[in-house]
């Protein structure tokens, strides 16, 4: 069986975020085929295929990137949150040349090129910018559409994305109050909306339900956007935005009474079905709604039966695992990144990484699978743009929110070395399970063994609380597996498929033929909005049994510790941790921290999105207090950290206590 090497070198500058649910992996660590070998070599990692390179800029250039686009001649337009637009000549060379094209704009958070002009969204307007006398500097700044704002700090505008007919789409962030930070509002027209704007300035309100729509993308001439987890938004994800859609956050619904609104759903109608939980304390101050552990709740897909305007995420990006603040969505063009051409990449501003998405249409609706792709960027990833040589420019900033990575801003470039990684290329829904396509042929025995796979599914609540824990988690038994002749596809028949649920599919046991490497990213999350009709797998075609009786492999040290989290293991470290007689070591809690996505935001000793655990230890909480704070965090306790921790009631008390004990041990 593979010896999966978990490499998290805490002292190094790069932070790797493990994808996947480790407990599932651990469960199958023991299984092996009689003819498999135990390898101690490392499997390939992201950086073996995709290198992050610098774009040198003159010292002192403040590049808090808000917008990126590649011009037809290969130059790169970069906009910044300080209102500058740079044109970078020869951006992929050793000496890119920065030319200041424009300045003095108001926080430019997107840029696009059309017919010799640049179009950008600033705080107050959609602007067309042109250099009419060819001196390399902009001289005409035409207001295409002025957008009303109240003057709140968070009323950002993102975009534009340009449709095939030349019209523009932008999205508008809600306003966030200082005190009730959990309840953003829309008090100027179209805050919380996606707008369709013509060249002559006509504004057509397109859809609402948006909270912080920083990531938008035009895919196949359709608008998609990714929101940030927060109130009403259980987790991030990519949503296909058709005209008249409601994507979840009710703040923008205040404008649906306008004559030109494409949807008529009101807040009152929505709140009649889902309580907004306006609560006050004894002093009459509003208090934020908290997650209730055991309650009846609804989901967005259930509510869609009452409100057909609701747009469900096409592909959920589970919070903390595949990002915490999703951003730019792009399609990988033909000729770029090898087998992944045609698929989508999404940035994440909090975890400073990029995820990959494969989408298909089932019953006419988009759905698909998401994986991690590349982590380790120096700051929060906000914008992506393809270079002429098919490398990927990555624009970064984390000012005001914090992120993984050691920098507060960045302009980097992701380059593929033309070696094909062993990855799941695509996952397609089947009437009775899934078909997984690989980039390289698999070793039949590893792929045919149903114990090489693990599937479970879950969903998020739809409620006014900030974020949602995963709920209704259930396992899905694998009934059978069929490997294609060429070894590039595997079809698995899976029990307990649930429509609209996110299906976690892990393939820890599958290896490829060339080097026997396991998958660079062995776990994917498939959003099963629709189950297709068609032929089911005939079980005679499949391998339906586990391989020869699972012989527990002699556990290596890593296996021992990673297995500690699994109940029933005879591991002594596990016993000790359970009995509480010894403080759990980092090796014991690391898998827990990964499983519960703690490491998405925390590191033992470095400030990331959240405080370092060493800092938490200084607070001298009791173990019980830490357990309560995991379940019900109090962001007010950490005023210097901008991103609130969502409630994590899904962490069982026993595991939370281990984590607490380890955290508190850091203060000694």
């Amino acid at each position, binding site marked *: 069986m593979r010896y999966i090497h978990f490499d998290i070198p805490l002292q190094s500058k790069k932070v790797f975020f493990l994808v996947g649910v480790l407990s599932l992996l651990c469960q199958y660590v023991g299984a092996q085929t009689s003819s498999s070998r135990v390898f101690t070599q490392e499997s390939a990692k992201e950086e073996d295929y995709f290198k992050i390179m610098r774009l040198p800029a003159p010292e002192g250039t403040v590049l808090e990137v808000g917008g990126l686009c590649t011009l037809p001649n290969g130059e790169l337009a970069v906009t910044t949150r*300080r209102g500058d637009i740079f044109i970078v000549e020869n951006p992929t060379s050793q000496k890119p040349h920065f030319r200041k094209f424009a300045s003095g704009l108001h926080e430019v958070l997107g840029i696009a090129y059309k017919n010799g002009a640049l179009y950008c969204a600033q705080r107050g307007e959609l602007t067309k910018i042109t250099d009419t006398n060819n001196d390399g500097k902009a001289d005409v*700044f035409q207001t295409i559409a002025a957008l009303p704002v109240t003057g709140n700090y968070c009323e950002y505008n993102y975009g534009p994305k340009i449709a095939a007919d030349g019209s523009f789409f932008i999205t508008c962030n809600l306003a966030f109050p200082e005190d009730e930070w959990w309840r953003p509002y829309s008090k100027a027209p179209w805050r919380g909306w996606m707008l369709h704007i013509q060249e002559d300035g006509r504004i057509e309100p397109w859809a609402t339900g948006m909270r912080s729509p920083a990531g938008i993308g035009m895919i196949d001439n359709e608008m998609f956007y990714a929101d940030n987890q927060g109130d009403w938004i259980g987790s991030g994800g990519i949503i296909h935005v058709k005209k008249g859609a409601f994507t979840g956050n009710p703040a923008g619904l205040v404008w649906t009474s306008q004559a030109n609104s494409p949807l008529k759903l009101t807040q009152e109608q929505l709140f009649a079905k889902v309580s907004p939980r306006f609560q006050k304390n004894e002093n009459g101050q509003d208090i934020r709604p908290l997650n209730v552990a055991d309650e009846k709740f609804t989901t967005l897909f259930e509510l869609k039966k009452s409100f057909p305007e609701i747009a469900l995420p096409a592909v959920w990006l589970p919070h903390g695992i595949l990002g915490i603040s999703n951003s730019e969505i792009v399609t990988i063009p033909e000729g770029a990144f090898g087998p992944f051409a045609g698929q989508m990449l999404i940035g994440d501003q909090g975890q400073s990484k990029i995820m990959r998405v494969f989408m298909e249409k089932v019953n006419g609706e988009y759905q698909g699978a998401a994986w991690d792709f590349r982590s380790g960027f120096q700051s929060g990833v906000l914008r992506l743009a393809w270079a002429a040589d098919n490398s990927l420019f990555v624009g970064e900033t984390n000012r005001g929110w914090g992120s993984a990575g050691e920098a507060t801003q960045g302009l980097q470039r992701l380059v593929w070395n033309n070696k094909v990684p062993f990855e799941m290329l695509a996952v397609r829904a089947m009437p009775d399970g899934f078909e997984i396509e690989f980039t390289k042929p698999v070793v039949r025995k590893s792929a045919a063994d149903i114990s090489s796979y693990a599937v479970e599914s879950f969903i998020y609540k739809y409620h006014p609380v900030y974020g949602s824990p995963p709920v209704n988690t259930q396992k899905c038994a694998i009934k059978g597996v069929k490997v294609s002749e060429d070894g590039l596809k595997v079809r698995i028949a899976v029990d307990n498929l649930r429509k609209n649920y996110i299906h976690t599919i892990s393939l820890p046991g599958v290896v490829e033929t060339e080097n026997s490497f396991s998958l660079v990213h062995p776990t994917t999350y498939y959003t099963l909005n629709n189950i297709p009709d068609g032929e089911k797998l005939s079980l005679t075609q499949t391998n339906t049994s586990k391989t020869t009786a699972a012989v527990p492999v002699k556990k290596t040290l890593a296996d021992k510790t990673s297995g500690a989290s699994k109940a029933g293991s005879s591991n002594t470290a596990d016993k000790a941790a359970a009995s509480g007689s010894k403080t759990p070591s980092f090796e014991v809690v690391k898998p827990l921290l990964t499983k519960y996505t703690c490491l998405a935001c925390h590191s033992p000793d470095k400030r990331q999105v959240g405080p370092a655990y060493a800092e938490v230890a200084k607070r001298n909480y009791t173990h019980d207090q830490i357990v309560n704070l995991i379940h019900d965090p109090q962001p007010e306790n950490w005023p210097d950290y901008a991103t609130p921790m969502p409630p994590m009631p899904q962490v069982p008390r026993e595991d939370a206590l281990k984590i607490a004990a380890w955290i508190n041990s850091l203060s000694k």
Partner: protein
Amino acid sequence: MKALDEVVLVYVADLKRITLPDFIKNSLCLIICILGLQSPAYSQTVLPLTDLTGFKPVSGNSWQIVGDVTADLDKDNRLTPVKGTGVLLNLPDKKRAESDLISNFEHGDVDLELDFMLAKKSNSGVYLQGQYEVQLEDSWGVKTPTSGNMGGIYERWDEKQLIGQQGYQGYAPRQNAGKAPGLWQHLKIKFQAPRFGADGRKTQNAKMLLVVLNGVNIHENVELLGPTRGALSQEEIATGPLRLQGDHGAIAFRNIRITNYDKPRAELIDLQYNIYKGKFDKAPDFSKLPPEAKGTSAILTSTVNRIPNEFLIQYQGKLRVPQAGEYTFNLTSPGGVGILKVNNNEIAKVVGETGQGKITLPVGDISFELLYSKFVSYIKPILGLTIAGPGFREYLVSDATTIKDPVDPIFVPAPTNTLLRSFIDLPEGQRLTHAISVGNPEQLHYAFDFDRGALALAWRGPFMDATPMWQDRGDGSSRPLGMLQPFGKPTLLFGKLSSEQALWPTDTTGSNYRPKGYTLDPQDIPTFQYQVHGAVVTDIIRVIDNGKGLQRTLTVQNSPANFYARLASGKKIEVYSKNMYLIDDKAYYLRLDEADNAKPIVRNMAGSQELIIPVQNKLSYSVIF
């Protein structure tokens, strides 16, 4: 008496601004705004200026009482008076020999506030105690002022030195915040007199605590080591008269306000403390509670306590009240509840960070009790208390405590023509959300409001402070730096009036106003474009006369009938000369440069005056200040 003077003023203001870093609050750069925030009008006198009896008889007779004055921009030293009272005018000429004017009253620590107007090329000054001069001079156009220019603290003089090296310890103002001659300017000085010991030797230097000219802090905490040149006496003194220079040119003063701080301050004595463990959101029954610790303390402080959280410090003592009157207390007690009881009255309960309480007290030793209960775990204990009362400056009676670390400000300079879009908070409080500021090396900058096509603000000095929008998340706004010249609430420049008396529209309703953006010329000077009432307008604002004014030129195509521009609105609009006006009680000049032969109209509206003019195709005017 505790020697807190040095430390007092900075920390007093900062203490009031202690805002705990709640996690989405952006860190603004610390403005050390010294006092005046809570200072009540204790002992404030407004000099009546109905005659000269408040002043010593003068040798010459250049001083007189008048009702108003006008200067002449083209003639040196010309101030033309209008009969009346309320304005103190110095107008030396062949018949009126010049001299200084010296008040009958004497002062020590004092706040002085006044308006003044200088004639062209005039030179005057204000001498605190007759000894320390703040220079008033027509330095209009000087970009790097010296101590001898407008607002400088004049140099000291040692006659015994070599020629050319006799002047020393003069302090230039931080910028030339002065305005054109013939405009009323505003000066505020907070002065601290030198201190002397029982043996008469000086124990502390005099200080200019703060000098504010036209809203700009030009000196802060400048220590004066000795009298400036031409002082009444070379010996420093505890009190001295106010002296206005009159031997160098024509100047007018009005609205002279003096606040004396010449009384002893109230002191806290016999402070004892008890410390209790527990979480209290109101005063507990102390009789049932044994204290964890107790003791005496020389000063109010939270450091007597060691318990990190859920504690209550009870201070008891006496407030020694030296003169009867109203006393104001500002309490800072974050992370729980603070309760202040003076003379057995609960006068302040702070839930949050800060609070204030007032009470009228008689002379004597008055009972004093302060409770600080802290129970919010993540907030550091801080206890701060200031006291203000009749005749003494507000001062800090608690220990100088630490506050949030200040951040490096982010300034945007304008070495070339520079644009910066941002939110702008106007002096009157309105936030512009679609504004652009244009800065230039002549240091006369302006802000244009895209929402109304309005010239919203102009200012002279450094360009902008972008810290509010570029520090941390920011709030999207930037601050103009330097001396501001507001133009009132921004409204549309253009409008359709059904008659010459019709009200000017208050907003853009019905105007079809649409901003179209701007173009930049090769020097990056913007031309703004917009549409209003069907007309297409180009609007370009240029600096003229090396930074003395802004000229705004508008072209209008397709102007409708009854089309007017409202050039100005203010308290008063006076004619200065043909096609030139003084706006808003001589705050700035407005000159009509080009108007297609249209005639400007000054009209009286309710409570204000307006300058309007019909417009067809072209309009050009300048604001000069």
